[in-house]
């Protein structure tokens, strides 16, 4: 992909910029779609219609929202810490965007094909915490501060089980590289992690051979459990219902972004949706084969067109990611919200012991079987 761009454009710097900007374009388009999806799905669930007047069936509603937010006055409260207050939304969005660097959209395209991809994801994911804390503290508003404190406690706690779930998959595959993790699941859908991992030997991108057989089926319950747990932690890390405690509308008005208006608020909004896709995409990558087609074959292979294969892979990943985003939205409009202490209980007393337990068993099995 990079070489393709280079051959087309020649200029190294321009290539790099374009290469980096690709996910951004995707992210913006996706955010518009997700915002529309949120209002339309909620409307469908609630016997309503949702936006109808903005374009046919309201499909350009998010565009109007963004254009309007651009025009809004940009308020910085008098008592706010101006530097941090202004920095926070950009940092928040940056953190979400930076994480996209290691998301492989197809076998051809990944922003940075890091060998430590999973590690990088965990590290960069924590950056969001700093942004939220900044926003809450700098706003000089008690509600914001409460929201920020809750959010930080929540994200920091839930990072532990999330990391453990990553570790489980990494243990099995033996690589921190996301491309390797996806390659390990290539072939038809029963090779996906959630169904116990590959049933035949696979050659990883690094050249190693991952020995596998139908015995892997014994991993099925373990991976299924870790998928559910990862998804739950994902909900918590993106502050979505039932864990939307930091911005609990009925308690804290809008939590850490209470004081933000206009574009800065839009930034927080965008980063929330970006994080939603991130969690969904990582779920798909870890447990549902990433960009792998569920049928194990691609249309592009039939016509011998590599670009079509890449496109299809991109399509599959986005489809899987969007499906999980849909589930997040679905849950949001169905479930009530937990309380702070229950959230912490759930993390430290349920998820973490279980995740350690699963990691232990998986590690043991991997050693025994290989």
């Amino acid at each position: 992909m990079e070489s393709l761009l280079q051959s087309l454009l020649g200029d190294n710097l321009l290539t790099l910029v374009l290469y980096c900007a690709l996910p951004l374009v995707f992210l913006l388009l996706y955010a518009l779609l997700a915002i529309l999806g949120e209002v339309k799905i909620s409307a469908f669930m609630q016997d309503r219609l949702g936006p109808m007047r903005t374009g046919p069936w309201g499909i350009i509603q998010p565009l109007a929202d963004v254009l309007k937010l651009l025009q809004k006055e940009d308020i910085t409260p008098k008592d706010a810490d101006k530097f941090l207050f202004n920095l926070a939304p950009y940092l928040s969005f940056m953190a979400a965007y930076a994480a996209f660097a290691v998301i492989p959209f197809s076998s051809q395209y990944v922003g940075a094909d890091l060998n430590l991809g999973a590690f990088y994801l965990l590290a960069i994911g924590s950056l969001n915490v700093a942004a939220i804390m900044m926003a809450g503290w700098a706003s000089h508003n008690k509600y914001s501060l409460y929201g920020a404190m809750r959010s930080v406690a929540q994200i920091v706690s839930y990072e532990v089980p999330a990391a453990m779930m990553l570790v489980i998959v990494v243990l099995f595959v033996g690589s921190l590289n996301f491309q390797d993790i996806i390659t390990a699941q290539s072939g038809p859908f029963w090779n996906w992690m959630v169904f116990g991992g590959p049933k035949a030997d696979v050659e990883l991108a690094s050249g190693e051979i991952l020995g596998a057989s139908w015995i892997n089926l014994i991993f099925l319950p373990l991976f299924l459990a870790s998928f559910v747990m990862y998804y739950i932690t994902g909900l918590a890390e993106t502050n979505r219902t039932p864990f939307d405690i930091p911005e609990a509308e009925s308690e804290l008005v809008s939590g850490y972004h209470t004081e933000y208006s206009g574009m800065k608020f839009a930034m927080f909004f965008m980063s929330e949706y970006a994080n939603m896709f991130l969690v969904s995409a990582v779920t798909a990558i870890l447990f549902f084969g990433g960009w792998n087609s569920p049928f194990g074959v691609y249309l592009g292979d039939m016509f011998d067109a590599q670009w079509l294969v890449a496109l299809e892979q991109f399509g599959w990943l986005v489809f899987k990611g969007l499906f999980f985003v849909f589930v997040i939205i679905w849950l949001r409009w169905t479930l009530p919200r937990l309380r702070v202490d229950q959230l912490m209980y759930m993390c430290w007393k349920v998820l973490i012991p279980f995740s350690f337990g699963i990691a232990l068993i998986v590690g043991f099995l991997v050693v025994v079987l290989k």
Partner: protein
Amino acid sequence: MGLLDKQFDDGNIVLTSLEGVLNWARLCSLWQMSFGLACCAIEMMAASASHNDIMRFGVLPRPSPRQCDVMIVAGTVTLKMASRVKRLYEQMAEPRYVVSMGSCSNCGGPYWEHGYHVLKGVDRVVPVDVYVPGCPPRPEALLEGWMRLQEKVRDFSLVKPQNGKPQNGRA
């Protein structure tokens, strides 16, 4: 931010079309501040519920005044509450609009004569764009008021008023 703070002396074709797009964006995405004062608040809630669904107009209720465009003053404004209403209005980001819903906030309603503690019309503390009459107004009346507000936003102009011609809408 940016464009709306400036005023232009004459309209040209670029400005006019830009104006159209910007106004369209604003009128399609008027976010409402979700706070109610009295009886009318129930009808306001009914307007956003499934039967009337004010969200069809692109309305999104936001709890924080910073992120809202429209304040619906739904109900009786008392003297004790008036300073709070004013403060909420001041906390909203420009461009901002006020819909006065119901007789009480229009003019004091049934409390105009003996209500020693009732403010006789919210327009005594904040500027009002659209008045919706009724005690309480039906949700349909609120929707009508909403469309009036949209018309008002549509006519907003970036161009300086000329020859004493009044400018519609406020920046």
